């Protein structure tokens, strides 16, 4: 048990755990101390000074986020001295910030703007520095935009990139008044090790880092009568979108989301969960094929563990950091890109549409998907497979722009022939979900029996631990798979690239040996993706995960190979997993990249 200490906040005595910061303690006293550089996902920086408080007996004000409580401490969070200092600090921050709020993408969801509004900063007593500095906007990435004129140098992005992702594409460069957030040699974000995961965007308190949005492009496509606009929605969007539109975190809004997309004017609203199920068919088959080649044929060119390839930020990460291990990646495209390739081939053929007139849009919890859709490899349909990728946040903006009263929408269902899904497809949105879905199908394929877990819930791969392991013993397989008899299939799951790094290092060193690993770049998996509603924190991600698993539990079908539309596409179009058509449309290759 932790020791309790007594402190006083604004003359109210409270008991708090020893070691808790003044910011946390204040919450217990019913006091909210404003913060800016502080974030629950990150280490304490204490550089913005917005959270200053007065401590009795101390001459100088202290940063509440960086000061631990001590026995008998008397803290004032709203004294005259604190109020004056806080207001000056906010004014100073604004003096080096391009505060053209009405022209800013983050207008309305900016923490600095909120502080300026809460504290009614209505004067500019300091020299405005932003116009004096020749800032350049980095908009070369298809995923994100970095605008230093809006940066307040709180370094949340630097800490995010280092602590959550272990990538450190961003750093604090130079010093003093010239200090800025920079990439290696201030190259564009698109030219460095940045994985486009968007976690920095999720954590940026201002508009310095935002996604590159394609809202107008999609409105234009919707307004064009000659275009047939198809939309797919990723599994994690349905458990995040509600947060932007008046629901509590963890609310499932699948039916309302479909209804809203139809109202926006999309000609067909379909589900990435369908192609998630398809991914399982392909990737599960690939796993079994690789196991056979390694265990039976002893083929030295076939690599294990097989690593999942759904997360485009993970793909870019391994291309930069472990280029020698690209052969471990599944050749399966991500569900988004499988869907894209099929929309302009299978779907177009089925409904007799000219693929030239199809605009394929995807709604993703992810900014890296924008980069992925832009990759030169992703044109296998003969066209660009996915034309525009919108984040959950961009969809929410479109719904608001269209004046749709989201709360009052009636539930609608996805369209055919790529709209049906199973619970296995839904859980792709949570860390461990792809693993669980793959095991549900692969185990059954090999043994003819369901996975030996209660209610199909493979609990060891669920949760928020950075790296999790599971193993399944294969007994009495069907005759075709007799070589797997007695094999203990070893799996690992990692999310957040900093955890991925430790898993990869243990594989590289030979310390760990797995057959199959699932990697998601973002904390919590896609549900904590860089395109999801802001704010994010461990509590919100936990609620979204619960919603994902509830969605799975509520589905009549929970194994990918039971999806009727999957059975249909194999019988009518693809013939078999890893077949020739699949190989052409659903599989891809990867490119080694530099490590800066």
């Amino acid at each position: 048990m932790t020791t309790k200490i007594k402190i006083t906040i604004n003359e109210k005595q409270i008991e708090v755990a020893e070691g808790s910061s003044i910011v946390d303690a204040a919450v217990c006293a019913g006091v909210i101390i404003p913060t800016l550089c502080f974030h629950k996902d990150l280490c304490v920086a204490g550089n913005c000074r917005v959270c200053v408080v007065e401590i009795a007996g101390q001459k100088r004000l202290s940063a509440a986020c960086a000061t631990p409580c001590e026995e008998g401490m008397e803290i004032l969070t709203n004294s005259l001295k604190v109020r004056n200092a806080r207001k000056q600090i906010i004014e100073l921050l604004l003096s080096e910030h391009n505060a053209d709020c009405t022209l800013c993408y983050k207008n309305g969801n900016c923490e600095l703007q909120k502080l300026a509004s809460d504290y009614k900063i209505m004067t500019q007593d300091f020299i405005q520095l932003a116009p004096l500095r020749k800032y350049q906007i980095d908009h070369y990435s298809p995923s994100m935009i970095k605008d230093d004129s809006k940066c307040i140098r709180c370094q949340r992005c630097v800490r995010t990139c280092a602590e959550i992702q272990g990538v450190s594409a961003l750093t604090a460069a130079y010093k003093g008044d010239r200090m800025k957030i920079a990439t290696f040699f201030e190259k564009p974000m698109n030219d460095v090790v940045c994985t486009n995961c968007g976690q920095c965007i999720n954590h940026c308190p201002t508009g310095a880092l935002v996604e590159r949005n394609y809202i107008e492009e999609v409105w234009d496509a919707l307004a064009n009568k000659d275009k047939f606009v198809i939309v797919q929605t990723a599994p994690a969007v349905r458990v995040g979108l509600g947060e932007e539109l008046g629901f509590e975190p963890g609310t499932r809004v699948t039916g309302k989301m479909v209804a809203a997309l139809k109202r926006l004017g999309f000609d067909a609203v379909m589900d990435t969960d369908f192609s998630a199920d398809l991914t399982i068919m392909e990737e599960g088959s690939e796993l079994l094929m690789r196991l056979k080649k390694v265990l039976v044929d002893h083929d030295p060119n076939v690599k294990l563990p097989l690593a999942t390839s759904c997360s485009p930020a993970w793909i870019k990460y391994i291309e930069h950091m472990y280029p020698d291990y690209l052969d471990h990646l599944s050749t399966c495209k991500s569900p988004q890109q499988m869907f894209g390739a099929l929309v302009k081939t299978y779907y177009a053929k089925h409904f007799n549409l000219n693929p030239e007139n199809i605009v394929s849009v995807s709604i993703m919890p992810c900014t890296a998907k924008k980069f992925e859709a832009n990759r030169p490899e992703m044109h296998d349909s003969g066209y660009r497979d996915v034309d525009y990728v919108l984040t959950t946040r961009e969809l929410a903006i479109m719904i608001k722009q269209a004046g749709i009263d989201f709360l009052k929408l009636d539930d609608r269902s996805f369209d055919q022939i790529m709209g049906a899904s199973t619970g296995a497809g839904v859980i792709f949105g949570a860390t461990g979900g792809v693993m669980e879905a793959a095991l549900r199908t692969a185990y059954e394929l090999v043994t003819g029996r369901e996975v030996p877990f209660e209610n199909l819930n493979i609990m060891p791969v669920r949760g928020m631990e950075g790296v999790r392991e599971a193993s399944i013993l294969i007994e009495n397989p069907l005759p075709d798979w007799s070589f797997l008899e007695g094999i203990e299939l070893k799996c690992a799951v990692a999310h957040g690239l900093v955890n991925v790094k430790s898993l990869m290092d243990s594989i590289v060193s030979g310390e760990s040996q797995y057959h199959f690993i699932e990697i998601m770049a973002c904390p919590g998996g896609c549900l904590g993706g860089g395109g999801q509603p802001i704010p994010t924190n461990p509590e919100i991600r936990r609620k979204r995960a619960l919603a994902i698993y509830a969605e799975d539990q509520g589905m009549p079908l929970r194994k990918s190979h039971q999806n009727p539309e999957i059975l249909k596409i194999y019988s009518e179009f693809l013939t078999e997993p890893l077949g020739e058509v699949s190989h052409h449309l659903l599989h891809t290759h990867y490119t080694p990249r530099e490590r800066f």
Partner: protein
Amino acid sequence: MVAVLELIDNLAGQYGRDRSSLLPILQGVVKQENYLSEYAMIEIARALNLPAAEVYGTATFYSFLEYKKMGKYLIRICKTITCSMKGKNQVLMAIEDMLKIKVGETTPDGMFSLLQTNCLGFCHMAPAMLINFDVYTDLTPEKVREILSGYLNKKGGADDTRI
């Protein structure tokens, strides 16, 4: 002179491959190369298993770690107040006039670069400047012309005054 890659490897062998070895390695490379190239920083990052951006962040933080190509002789003239009061501007003008470069520039032959620096701690002998690691004090326009002539005369010679 050894190739940069070999130099980095030697330095890493000497100082170790921990994060804390970054500064001495950066200094060691600057000592030979006069600046840190993009290539050198990438290789240092690889040798220490650090993110390249972090190496760049560290290099740009320190004034004496140059990250742009510099001339063989790097002149740093003190820009702080005592030197200014004792005639640093006249000295600077004399250098600019003689070498035909401005602060921040390098002569076309790659021999001299001119920079300003913060206090060198020679206020009592102001104005002061550094050429590579040699200090020159009590400067006047005449004196600085003489000093630079010395460097110009040995230009092309094998000898190197750097410590």
